[in-house]
């Protein structure tokens, strides 16, 4: 599954296949075509993943647009420490949280969507290992908090906004999850 995805991503690239970092450098010098190529490579997975975290596709679309507007404006500030995709993700998930916060009555993660993060993304990350089995045995609300902080890379406060729960609840659920995990696999 993972390898097929990797092939798909690279197969889509232009014949010259410039790496993302090079595209980003071209974006920072004002190359609109390079932005289009980055969008072609990264917008689909970004939209898919944000959609799993927010039921409202209007908010997701705005967040995706804001993300690439940000990429256009901030390309020069990118530090080549990690993958460009990871950088785009940190922008995207925060733009999504911004959008959710702007709503007078924030639309929480659709109960139908949240498990998709847990059922589709976490197993990919953990695989059929002891860790995967340990995760599966946790309460869904503990799983959601672990996914938001560790997999999505959010701070406790941001995770609280994404999941529409108080920050204190994130902290307490996180420590509960950790102590349970310690018991299961010391």
């Amino acid at each position, binding site marked *: 599954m*993972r390898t097929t995805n990797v092939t798909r991503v690279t197969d889509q690239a232009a014949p010259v296949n410039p790496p993302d970092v090079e595209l980003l450098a071209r974006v920072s010098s004002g190359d609109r075509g390079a932005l289009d190529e980055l969008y072609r490579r990264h917008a689909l997975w970004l939209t898919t*993943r944000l959609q799993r975290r927010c039921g409202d596709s209007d908010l997701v679309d705005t967040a995706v*647009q804001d993300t690439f507007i940000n990429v256009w404006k901030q390309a020069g500030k990118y530090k080549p420490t990690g993958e460009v995709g990871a950088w785009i993700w940190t922008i995207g998930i925060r733009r999504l949280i911004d959008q959710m916060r702007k709503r007078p009555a924030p639309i929480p993660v659709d109960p139908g969507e949240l498990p998709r993060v847990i059922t589709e993304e976490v197993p990919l990350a953990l695989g059929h290992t002891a860790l995967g089995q340990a995760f599966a045995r946790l309460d869904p609300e503990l799983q959601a908090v672990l996914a938001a902080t560790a997999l999505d890379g959010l701070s406790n406060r941001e995770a609280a906004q994404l999941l529409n729960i108080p920050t204190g609840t994130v902290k307490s659920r996180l420590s509960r999850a950790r102590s349970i995990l310690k018991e299961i696999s010391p």
Partner: protein
Amino acid sequence: MNDLEQQLAQAATRPQLFGAGDIEPTRMAENLHSVHAELDAPREPRLARVLRRFGVPDLTIPLVTATPALRRSWFVAVAIAILFSLSVASNNTGAGVDRIAVFLTLAPLVPLLGVALAFGKGVDPTHDLVVAAPRDTFTVFLIRALTVLTASSAILILSSLLLPEGGAFRIAWLLPAVAISAVTLAASTRFDPRRAAAVIGSAWLVVVIIVAGAASSSAMFGLATQISSLVAAALAGWYVVSGRERFEMAQVDR
């Protein structure tokens, strides 16, 4: 952080591996289109962004920002005029109100000038558009005039604070200024705004010179003047509102 969280965080460094997409291609294309549209859109003037933040309706914003009298050149002219009268005020001999009499006399003319130049054929590059627009011309004129009155009064109030003395008299120009501008607005429903402004501005100067010469500056800017300014402003305001049809016709005729 435990093994599980580390494993998740490790996976997070390649976020694209989790996004086997089931999003429609048209939606993807539309989002890219919106990104381009946003990047191509001309940047709004700073004033427009400030107004938007204060909740001014979208339709009103271009009317305010396109007000000719709000251009930088006008602001520079106003600033020079104010500095001039401030310097006269601080060099003048005498005490109290007399020292700031020049400022009090000239200050009401600043918003008046602004109102005269806020709207009208030959001054406003958007005039023909405004007259032809589905929005009524009168509302546009009022928005423009109020914009200029607010902007110039703000400048004047700030400069009043710089006056060396005068106490409460330092803002004694405010009500006369409102009255003069309101009377000009009222006259503009019948006559050319610039001609009306010139006549009323001159009348104000004549009155000040006569009254201040016969009595004193403190009499000129005293309670009687404030009250009659208020009355004049109210009457003129009423006349303006009741005269909106006269105004529309006058614009079409001109």
